[in-house]
């Protein structure tokens, strides 16, 4: 593969590949793959190692295959790579699915006593380590623990103390009683001991541990935690991959902070419940994915017209229609920026990393209340299913600031009542931001409506008032542009000739690709853009650069279109829409290719090798709407 060749080329240039371990467990859906992987990821995190996980749901061959992959290092990592060092294969297909990523030093752990694996032979020079997982699990108390036996074996293969598994086993099985926990710990040790006692081979892996303390979380959890930190008390949602984890996180947690979660009957209901709660004064949100945003579009206009603060989170997945529900895509930008009938002033903020999921959520709640406007909070599947380590200080609750905007209490209300003692919730102020009262506030009673209305919130078709109200709502966005810092996240060499622009989860893979390119002698400046509307003014940065490349996970280059429109200049595009996130290796290659290309919109190839694989494949029919 090109990427492999490129990696070798880097190696010959004296560039050190990161000392990372790439580990996976794979099998059929229902084999407990996720929880097995999570236990190992937590153990690595507790051992002071950084972890970055990814999930293979769908298959290139046929449905049913699933894998949990972990990249781990003592150094910070932000991306996946296409290399697999240690693989627990519960099925032969798991190996077939990952042939491209396995190499001569790879170790495959499998159970050769199971009939489905008895004829298995490892490809190439790699080590096939047959361990009687099921038999050892039965000896330890039950066949169900065979995955834990495999984890013990994996520890031995990696030179990783099996006791690091104990804490995560306690976390996973603690609720089932101490004997279950003890059996699992025993099962892990049986898997380890088998290697010491029965296996003559030695393995090239001996991973380091550190004293660092890390937390391990995914993007949906970071959004949920950010929401609670920001004072969100009401959440209504309808289950949809990959946003459901936001709701599952909040359920059983937000109640402890005086909040509540409603699983609504559909997305129409969810957003309207969230809006009702916001009218009652609660910080309120809903989260969904593209199909849900479609359904919510009408109410989005109502939220904007009634000037209600509300956070609507879109965790994007592959579309259109039901698309590929468990696959990555950044295809909703056009809809988020322009969706809905009529002209709807809005704020659109996007997370670029898992930590940013937390920070931008808090910011979204403040922006919503300061400007009394709906805020789209954008994440994508790659963020939501990835678990990543961070120092706990990254989520500093002491630094959280709450700004509720122009929320009136007591005497201030008089200032905003007319001669008939009526409160004016849509007063056409200079900055566009009206006074706001919440129900229960004496003297603040008012109505509002999705009909065009006057300052009292009552329907009008008066032509002057119509213009006044449209202008005042639009003016709020102009005020926000003036008052807030709409900056991009900058990485790399600020003086580089090559400028890469991105939004969403691509940031990590681009940064790692940049490290490789830097070692090769190519400097890059990256602007990772969290503010999608309003946006940072990128005119100067684009004019200064010789090459501008926009990286995004969609087919048409929606962000690139926006940038071209903003700065009236052409950009190069790197797009990916086969359902798989960017990885650092592949991206480094494609950036190199793009720099050398003739330029012009749409010229850069979009990884057709990967695209063909995807289109040839029979993808998993997991319909999760």
């Amino acid at each position: 593969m090109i990427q492999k060749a490129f990696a070798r080329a880097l190696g010959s240039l004296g560039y050190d590949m990161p000392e990372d371990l790439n580990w996976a467990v794979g099998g059929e859906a229902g084999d407990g793959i996720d929880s097995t992987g999570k236990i190992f990821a937590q153990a690595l995190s507790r051992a002071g190692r950084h972890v970055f996980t990814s999930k293979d749901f769908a298959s290139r061959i046929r449905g049913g295959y699933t894998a949990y992959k972990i990249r781990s290092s003592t150094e910070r990592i932000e991306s996946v790579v296409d290399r697999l060092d240690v693989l627990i294969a519960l099925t032969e297909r798991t190996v077939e699915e990952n042939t491209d990523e396995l190499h001569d030093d790879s170790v495959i752990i499998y159970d050769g006593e199971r009939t489905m694996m008895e004829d298995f032979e490892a490809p190439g020079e790699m080590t096939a380590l047959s361990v009687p997982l099921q038999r050892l699990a039965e000896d330890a108390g039950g066949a169900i623990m065979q995955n834990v036996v495999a984890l013990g074996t994996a520890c031995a293969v990696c030179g990783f103390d099996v006791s690091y598994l104990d804490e995560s086993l306690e976390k996973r099985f603690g609720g089932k009683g101490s004997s279950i926990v003890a059996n699992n710990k025993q099962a892990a040790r049986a898997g380890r001991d088998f290697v010491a006692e029965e296996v003559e081979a030695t393995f090239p892996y001996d991973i380091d541990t550190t004293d660092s303390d890390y937390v391990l979380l995914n993007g949906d959890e970071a959004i949920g935690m950010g929401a609670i930190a920001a004072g969100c008390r009401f959440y209504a949602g309808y289950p949809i991959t990959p946003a459901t984890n936001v709701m599952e996180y909040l359920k059983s947690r937000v109640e402890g902070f005086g909040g509540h979660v409603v699983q609504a009957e559909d997305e129409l209901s969810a957003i309207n419940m969230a809006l009702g709660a916001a009218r009652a004064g609660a910080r309120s949100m809903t989260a969904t994915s593209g199909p849900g945003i479609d359904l919510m579009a009408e109410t989005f206009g109502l939220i904007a017209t009634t000037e209600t603060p509300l956070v609507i989170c879109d965790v994007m997945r592959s579309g259109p229609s039901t698309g590929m529900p468990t696959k990555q895509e950044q295809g909703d930008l056009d809809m988020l920026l322009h969706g809905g009938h009529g002209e709807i002033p809005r704020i659109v903020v996007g997370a670029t990393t898992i930590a940013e999921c937390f920070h931008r959520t808090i910011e979204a709640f403040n922006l919503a209340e300061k400007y009394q406007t709906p805020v789209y909070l954008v994440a994508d599947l790659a963020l939501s299913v990835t678990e990543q380590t961070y120092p706990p200080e990254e989520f500093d609750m002491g630094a959280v600031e709450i700004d509720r905007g122009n929320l009136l209490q007591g005497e201030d209300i008089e200032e905003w009542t007319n001669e008939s003692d009526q409160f004016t919730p849509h007063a056409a102020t200079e900055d566009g931001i009206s006074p706001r009262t919440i129900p229960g506030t004496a003297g603040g009673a008012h109505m509002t409506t999705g009909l065009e209305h006057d300052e009292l919130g009552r329907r009008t078709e008066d032509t002057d008032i119509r213009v006044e109200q449209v202008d005042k709502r639009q003016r709020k966005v102009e005020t926000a542009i003036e008052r807030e810092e709409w900056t991009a996240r900058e990485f790399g060499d600020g003086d580089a000739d090559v400028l890469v622009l991105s939004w969403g989860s691509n940031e990590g893979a681009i940064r790692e690709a940049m490290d490789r390119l830097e070692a090769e002698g190519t400097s890059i400046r990256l602007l990772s853009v969290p503010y999608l509307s309003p946006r940072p003014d990128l005119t100067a940065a684009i004019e200064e650069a010789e090459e501008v490349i926009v990286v995004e996970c969609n087919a048409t280059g929606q962000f690139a279109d926006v940038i071209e429109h903003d700065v009236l200049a052409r950009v190069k595009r790197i797009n990916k829409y086969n359902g798989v996130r960017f990885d650092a290796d592949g991206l480094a290659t494609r950036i190199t290719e793009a720099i050398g290309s003739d330029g012009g919109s749409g010229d850069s190839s979009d990884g057709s090798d990967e695209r063909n694989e995807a289109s040839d494949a029979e993808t998993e029919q997991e319909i999760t709407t």
Partner: protein
Amino acid sequence: MSSEVRFTDFKSDAQPTWCPGCGDFGTMNGMMKALANSGNHPDDTFIVAGIGCSGKIGTYMHSYALHGVHGRALPLGIGVKAANPDLEVMVAGGDGDGYSIGAGHFVHAVRRNLDMTYVVMDNRIYGLTKGQFSPTSREDFETATSPEGPQQSPVNPLALALASGATFIGQTFSSDAQRHTEVVKQAIEHDGFGFVNVYSPCVTFNDVDTYDYFRESLVDLGEEEGYDRTDDEAAIERIMDAEKEHQGVIYQDPDSVSYGDEHGLENSMADIPEGAPEGATDLVREFY
């Protein structure tokens, strides 16, 4: 409770644009009286209105109010009530809003049983769009979109409510002001979802379900000796009786526990600290 509140305190200074003689005048007056009579104050009351002639009600009443998009009034009301249980929440809509575009929400609002009131102004016609059949129109009711009648069974909203697990089902007639007010007041006081279907005649587009028709055909369960509103079988019998129209409280579950009580919703969610809430750091520790 404040005895000084008069029903006119719930009236705004906006002039209704309903047709002269519209049933919605009576329906709204009864709602305002019921709110005042049950000790509510406009500053602590939230009216949610759907789309249709009925949806104009938020403008003509004085309280906190939200006029939403078509069919979504109930989810709005649920959000308001969940976020602040101290508010008196009353949702008003029409038969199109509640039983057609919003029918799905009706089923789920009923079964959730929040302590709120839902008043449906049922005129068996789409009036605001100038006369098309509605989900409660008779099978042979001729309109521009049903020249030979809809030729489909009308929705029986009371049966739909009962099948969805309703804890309070009332039906009234807008022109019987006293009974309408009484039943809506009982719906307000009910600990759960107080549903009242109000026959609210359209004088412009419906010449079948008229004031005269309802006056002649309505049987008042309040006057029927021995009618036990807590007897669900008696309620089913009345609700499924195609020959008669009933008014009064048709069914009430005496053991109703509202959603808020079931889920421990006690306080307004509007008050939050100026920083992250106490205990938020424990959320980070969970991820070790």
